[in-house]
């Protein structure tokens, strides 16, 4: 027998990947400081995905505690388990273990803001009734103390049936030690006794539980009594007599009153009793946040404040981002040019330079604006201003059939419709939400601006109109055209396809508070990742496809002609003249290649369709190329008018001005240009927006409708202007 020698490795040196032992659901009211606490517990060990079949994001993080690793699921903020919005429904499904892809939680971390025990305890009693171990984190306890509130934690714990209560300050980390210790043992902790918030209900449930001979527990009967058929299926079919008894008892308990209302009344009655015992001192509005909120309560300062905030956001998104965007543009062009000149001329080189590099460039060029926009949205959200903006604008937005919550998606869409559509998630009513999603792409996004700038600079005279410049007025007019079309669309939809009862409007208006930088940074990172995944991939793919359509098939006769011209030029010219001739020949060849490429051919095929708008095949080809991503149009115009890469240069302007029909009349007349601008203002030329609409509405119906509707509007608008304006 061979002797075995023991090899000893110190245990602490064996690195073992620790798998989470159990899943804990993190549940709390919106604005309870839940995200800050979640970030504090998990740090950067978190991931964002979507729940299956819906658009709500699923935040999962790993909490490494002293001797346990737990998976935390950060659920959307909710006030109640009687779910109202999509996000609340998700929260309810997860805690009840009904959500596909999420393990049934082994415990609940209930997050309650110490200065809002009233709504917090309402939710906590519902959570305790689920029969899982619960730990309550009392967040922002410093702010509550500062406001003059004292909470008797031991007493509160007794009222909550023995659930552990940990006062914490997530921003500073105070109290986090005891919360971590409580969490580590939570899966094995005792399930707290559900408070008897409605003695009559408790007595009835006890009686029925005794009658059921152990088939149902008291807590299950209580849920069945409250939820009726809407609740979890706890009553099994064989228990017919029991089901009937429960139905009877239900009718007796609720009478003719709506169960939701009755439940809310009873629960809050209990909460008020508890508050009278555990909370002393009434919140005094001494904090700066409360004072600012009180000031912005008044209609006039509130409105002025709102416009100042919007102006700052606009200024930041456009002015601050521009230098960065220009730099990215320049870097992309330089890299592409470098690749073209370094690698031998081939399809692969063109793919890398004009397809891949240009594609990546067209994605990251949006990042400065998107990041600034997201940063402001997160700051406004975390500071509590977003809710106030929705409140202030509700009356105005309602007059166009939307609600105050539509204002932020609309404003965001002036930078890009993709984050705008994503921001509609806060709108609880589905009809409101879809109307907003369909109005959002009409807002003038930053991808429309280069097209506007080029055409206005080329064809609108810079004459003064009063104090204004005509060019500026035309640009302003285009912004207004977008807004008007969006508003009319929303109005029209709310009266036809999306007609329905006026949605409930109930909004919590939190006090202003200083956003936590760590939370802001983590959220910003998460949203940028989502943007890159949703929009970035689409924009990049589109860039490569458009490249292929404009590159293939290659014509040998065009190449032959170019080579012959080049040989001739080399024989007769030298130095600068030769260099100029080389560029000229290359640009002409590129234009000729484009003319006979799939894109050029497509332009010629559809040109008759666009003839009533006054467009020739070149513009038609550029517009077709712009359908998946509108900003592509300038690059295509540059190639088709043989000015090479200098598309934004004045050479393109000159070429456009001198473009003629075969009969010698100019193509770019003022009516045609105005028509083209209107087409750009109204047409939905953005595959990324369509993809996001598809995702957010979870159906193909709305993106298809949006595309058809907006394209028709653009086409008809352009045609009317051209036909009416042309002699």
């Amino acid at each position, binding site marked *: 027998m061979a002797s075995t020698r023991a090899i000893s490795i110190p245990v602490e040196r064996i690195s073992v990947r620790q798998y989470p032992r159990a899943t804990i659901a993190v549940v709390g009211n919106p604005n309870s400081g839940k995200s800050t606490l979640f970030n504090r517990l998990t740090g950067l060990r978190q991931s964002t995905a979507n729940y299956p079949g819906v658009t709500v994001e699923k935040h999962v993080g790993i909490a490494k505690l002293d001797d346990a690793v737990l998976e935390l699921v950060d659920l959307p903020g909710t006030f109640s388990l009687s779910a109202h919005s999509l996000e609340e429904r998700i929260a309810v499904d997860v805690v009840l273990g009904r959500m596909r892809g999420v393990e049934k939680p082994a415990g609940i971390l209930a997050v309650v803001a110490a200065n809002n025990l*009233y*709504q917090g305890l309402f939710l906590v009693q519902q959570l305790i009734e689920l029969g899982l171990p619960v730990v309550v984190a009392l967040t922002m306890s410093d702010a509550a103390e500062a406001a003059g509130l004292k909470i008797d934690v031991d007493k509160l714990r007794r009222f909550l049936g023995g659930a552990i209560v940990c006062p914490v300050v997530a921003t500073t980390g105070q109290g986090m030690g005891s919360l971590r210790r409580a969490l580590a043992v939570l899966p094995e902790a005792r399930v707290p006794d559900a408070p008897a918030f409605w003695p009559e209900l408790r007595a009835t449930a006890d009686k029925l539980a005794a009658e059921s001979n152990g088939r149902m527990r008291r807590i299950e009967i209580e849920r069945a009594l409250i939820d009726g058929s809407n609740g979890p299926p706890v009553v099994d079919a064989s228990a017919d007599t029991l089901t009937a008894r429960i139905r009877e008892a239900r009718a007796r308990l609720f009478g003719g009153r709506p169960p939701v*209302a009755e439940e*809310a009344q009873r629960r809050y009655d209990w909460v008020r009793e508890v508050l009278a015992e555990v909370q002393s001192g009434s919140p005094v509005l001494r904090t700066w946040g409360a004072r600012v909120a009180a000031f912005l*309560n008044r*209609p006039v300062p509130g409105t002025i404040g709102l416009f100042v905030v919007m102006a700052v956001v606009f200024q930041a998104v456009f002015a601050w981002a521009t230098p960065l965007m220009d730099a990215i543009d320049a870097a992309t062009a330089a890299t592409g040019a470098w690749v073209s000149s370094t690698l031998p001329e081939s399809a692969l080189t063109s793919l890398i330079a004009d397809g891949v590099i240009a594609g990546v460039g067209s994605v990251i060029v949006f990042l400065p604006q998107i990041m600034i926009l997201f940063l402001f949205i997160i700051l406004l959200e975390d500071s509590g201003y977003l809710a106030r903006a929705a409140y202030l604008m509700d009356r105005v937005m309602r007059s166009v059939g939307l609600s105050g919550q539509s204002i932020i998606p609309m404003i965001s869409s002036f930078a890009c419709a993709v984050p705008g559509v994503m921001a509609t998630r806060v709108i609880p009513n589905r009809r409101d939400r879809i109307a907003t999603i369909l109005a959002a792409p009409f807002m003038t996004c930053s991808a429309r601006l280069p097209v506007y700038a080029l055409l206005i600079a080329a064809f609108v005279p810079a004459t003064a109109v009063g104090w204004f410049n005509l060019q500026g007025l035309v640009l302003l007019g285009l912004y207004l055209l977008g807004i008007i079309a969006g508003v009319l669309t929303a109005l029209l939809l709310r009266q036809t396809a999306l007609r329905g009862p*006026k949605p409930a409007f109930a*909004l919590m208006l939190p006090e202003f508070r200083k956003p936590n930088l760590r939370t802001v940074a983590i959220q910003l990172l998460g949203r940028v990742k989502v943007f890159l995944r949703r929009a970035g991939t689409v924009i990049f793919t589109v860039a490569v496809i458009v490249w292929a359509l404009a590159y293939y098939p290659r014509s040998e006769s065009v190449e032959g002609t170019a080579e012959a011209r080049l040989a001739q030029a080399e024989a007769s010219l030298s130095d600068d003249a030769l260099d100029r001739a080389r560029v000229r020949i290359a640009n002409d060849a590129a234009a000729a290649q484009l003319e006979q490429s799939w894109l050029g051919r497509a332009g010629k095929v559809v040109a008759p369709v666009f003839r009533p708008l006054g467009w020739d095949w070149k513009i038609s080809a550029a517009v077709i190329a712009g359908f998946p991503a509108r900003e592509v149009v300038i690059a295509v115009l540059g190639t088709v008018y043989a000015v090479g890469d200098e598309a934004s240069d004045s050479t393109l302007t000159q070429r456009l001005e001198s473009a003629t029909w075969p009969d010698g009349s100019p193509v770019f007349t003022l009516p045609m240009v105005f028509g083209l601008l209107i087409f750009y203002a109204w047409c939905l030329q953005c595959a990324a927006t369509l993809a996001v609409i598809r995702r957010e509405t979870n159906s193909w119906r709305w993106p298809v409708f949006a595309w058809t509707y907006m394209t028709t509007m653009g086409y008809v608008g352009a045609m009317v202007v051209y036909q009416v304006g042309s002699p």
Partner: protein
Amino acid sequence: MKTTFHSTLETLRRGQRGVIKTVDSADPAVQRLMVLGLVAGAEIEFTGAAIGGDPLEFRLFGNGISLRREQARHFEVVAAGDG
């Protein structure tokens, strides 16, 4: 059934406090507000209205909550003395 109350959340003056006495809970939008804590027995203070006089903002147990006039009139209130 339609109930018309004489003194409601809508008739409170700015800065005035009151206690909700009864709620006409037939409207689902009103039920939603009850879930947020606007139930009989809750003390509430009217703090102001937005642009155009609607929606209204109230203070409920130290926290701001806003609702539209349309729903506010379903909450009967016993107003406290001038606040």
